[in-house]
């Protein structure tokens, strides 16, 4: 493993972890449910993407690389669909009581 690749990988993983942290900060700081969903879906997408990008140079074969990318895609799909469903329930007001 060349030094440059190792360095790039570490930077990518750290950047990914940073975005996860920012997403959590957004969950605390943002004022309402919908804005919080923004922070979660987008930073998770980018954070996990960067972590996986950083892990790719270390995989032993193509099979494991595919596995990592597939995990990213599945998390994206689940995250985006989940946030849409949460927002829909909140908008129509037929879910649990959301007022604090």
């Amino acid at each position: 493993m060349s030094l440059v690749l190792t360095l790039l990988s570490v930077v990518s993983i750290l950047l990914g972890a940073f975005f996860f942290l920012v997403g959590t900060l957004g969950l605390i700081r943002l004022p309402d449910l919908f804005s919080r969903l923004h922070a979660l879906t987008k930073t998770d997408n980018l954070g996990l993407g960067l972590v996986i990008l950083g892990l790719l140079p270390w995989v032993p074969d193509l099979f494991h690389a595919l596995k990592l990318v597939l995990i990213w895609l599945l998390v994206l799909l689940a995250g985006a669909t989940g946030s849409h469903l949460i927002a829909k329930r909140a908008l129509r007001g037929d879910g649990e009581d959301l007022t604090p």
Partner: protein
Amino acid sequence: MDFATRLLVFFGCWTILAGWDPSSWVIGLPAVLFASWVYGRLAQDSARPGIRPMLAFLPFFLRESFRGGADVARRILRPRMRIAPGFQTYRMRLSQPAARVLFLDCVSLLPGSLSADRHQDVIQVHLLDASLDVTPELADLERRVAAIFDERLEPDAHV
């Protein structure tokens, strides 16, 4: 997509995730069969997504994912958050169920927008900054999604 293609795709997904261990198929086989059946029910007569347009979509998707994450991070990290949340509506022209799901999910990954509700063709989009009109961006995304499912859109967008 016909049933055989769906079986093949989900079979491939399971193999990638769980590996070749035969005992994993105790869970895997029912899951693959169920997923193939449910996909058929939900997607109805949606066209099979084209490989080449999907590859063309990828750079756009990665770029927008990066912009989306960076945009929301910038807003959160400011001492005084720069947000003016609100809703806008948009009339979808896509008609295939699978294309609509992809469109709604991608809206949530674009910078500043979140698909919040859908009544037939009309979707509600929540925006972190509702002072800007996002109709052109949504129409652009819709065109790109339509290309994946080989769908023709009527020329006029907008609500």
